[in-house]
């Protein structure tokens, strides 16, 4: 039992110790992929082989083999056309998602702090949550047109719900005695927001941002598919029209890869910013 104190002293200096190993935070690259990596690689390999076999036997014009798809993906990465499309699509993604965060986070905090507002807001949040968003695309096109604006709006509408709902939950989870403590030291309402509510809600806000990114990418592609534009969705439609299946699949691979990358980035940021909360709250890890 005397080891407990020596451990504390020795922390940082010595790295060898006996007994159960303290759970350690893996370094960033490993954390991004997680400890599931071997299993994920395995399932991916099975999937790739099955795809290859199926496409070789039964495939045709509409179903490329795995290797064809990989080839097409690399070929696509070398074209200016793809990067042009990426640029246009991501413009909508970045602006739209930024709007969702800039509006969603304060809105969520306000809803969390003033519960009375709940009655007014709840129904709209639910609408945003459950309505098939594709249904509002024709509406948007009629009112805003085919340009950047309507794509930006759609991305924002798609992703803002996650940000608002999670920020609101985060604020609710903040210990009320911290607010009382801040008030006892003469904190103004503004200081309570910036020093207590925002940092306290940050873990949940980051979760909302991560979930929001996923929805933002969905929104980005969907609107382009339905609106016929020059961007990634446009590429998909074009390759489909030309029956160039490998290129079509390659485009989709690139979109999926981008989404995974963004979500991993968000998760990484979440871990970096909110280490303190690991011990204190158990949150969903969807």
């Amino acid at each position: 039992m005397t080891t407990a104190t020596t451990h504390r002293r020795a922390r940082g200096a010595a790295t060898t110790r006996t007994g159960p190993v303290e759970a350690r935070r893996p370094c960033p690259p490993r954390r991004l992929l997680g400890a599931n990596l071997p299993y994920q690689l395995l399932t991916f390999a099975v999937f790739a082989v099955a795809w290859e076999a199926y496409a070789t036997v039964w495939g045709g014009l509409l179903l490329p083999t795995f290797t064809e798809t990989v080839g097409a993906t690399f070929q696509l990465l070398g074209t200016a056309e793809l990067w042009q499309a990426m640029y246009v699509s991501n413009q909508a993604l970045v602006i739209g998602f930024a709007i969702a965060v800039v509006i969603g986070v304060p809105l969520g905090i306000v809803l969390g702090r003033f519960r009375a507002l709940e009655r007014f807001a709840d129904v709209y949040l639910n609408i945003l949550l459950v309505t098939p968003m594709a249904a509002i695309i024709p509406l948007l096109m009629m009112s805003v047109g085919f340009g950047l604006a309507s794509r930006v709006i759609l991305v924002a509408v798609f992703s803002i719900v996650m940000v608002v709902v999670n920020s609101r939950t985060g604020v609710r989870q903040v210990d009320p005695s911290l607010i009382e403590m801040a008030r006892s030291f003469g904190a103004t309402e503004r200081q309570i927001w910036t020093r207590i509510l925002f940092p306290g809600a940050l873990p949940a806000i980051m979760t909302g941002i991560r979930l929001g990114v996923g929805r933002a990418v969905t929104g980005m592609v969907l609107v382009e598919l339905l609106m016929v534009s020059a961007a990634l969705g446009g590429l998909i439609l074009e390759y489909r029209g030309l029956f160039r299946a490998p290129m079509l699949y390659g485009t989709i691979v690139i979109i999926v890869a981008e989404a995974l990358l963004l979500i991993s980035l968000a998760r990484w940021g979440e871990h970096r910013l909110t280490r303190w909360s690991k011990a204190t709250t158990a949150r969903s890890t969807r």
Partner: protein
Amino acid sequence: MIEVRGLGKSYIGQDGGVVQALQDVDLTVADNEFLTVLGPSGCGKTTLLKAIAGLIPWNEGDIFIDGSPVRGPGPERSMVFQNFALLPWATVLENVAFGLQMRGVGKTERIERARALIETVGLGEFETKRPGELSGGMQQRVGIARALAVQPSVLLMDEPFGAVDEQTRRLLQEELLSIWEEHRLTVVFITHSMEEAVLLGDRVVLMSARPGRISEIVPVPLTRPRSSDVGALERSGKYVEITAYLWDRLRDMHEERRPAKAGR
């Protein structure tokens, strides 16, 4: 000096009923006095302290600090919380400096003053740790340092040692005594423990419940400074006598309430 005059406070309960938490509370706390408040659970101790802190409104009466009426929290008062109320995302240093930051003290001075108090409470090595990495006793040391950092003349403590283990509690009591002997400030200290009330206080305020009022104020004529030999003090006749008296009175209060409850 703290003056509480005819203080009355009622809460609207969740069922819509009115709970008279405090009624006709009159109390004067002298400068540099260490006042302890003792009473059964739910008798309004926290309510009284929060009213003095300016954190809650009340229905009747007045509270004055050095002659001026309490309208809200003020720079001469600071509070120590039972559940510590530390910011889990901030380091020990940031937590201790928090009160200073709220009061607009500049960064360099803030850090300097916070560091000095962290030393006072013996947490020098832990400056960069977060509360989650500290034991309960250490967390409350942070809470005390944070309250002292703003250099209050009145320190309000709501069962500050209620959530720490017995041994740590004794250490903290001794430390609080020596801090108080050195800094000289007015302390209102709420506790459930008769021993703690006697050990620390110049006077013990006994409160009774439903409605919450002051039933008696018991002076504690034990010599000061007490921090140097707490053990001897606890064996002294006077100490034993006063704690026994307090327990008698408290037991009466509990007994008065028991038949009433059983009858319902």
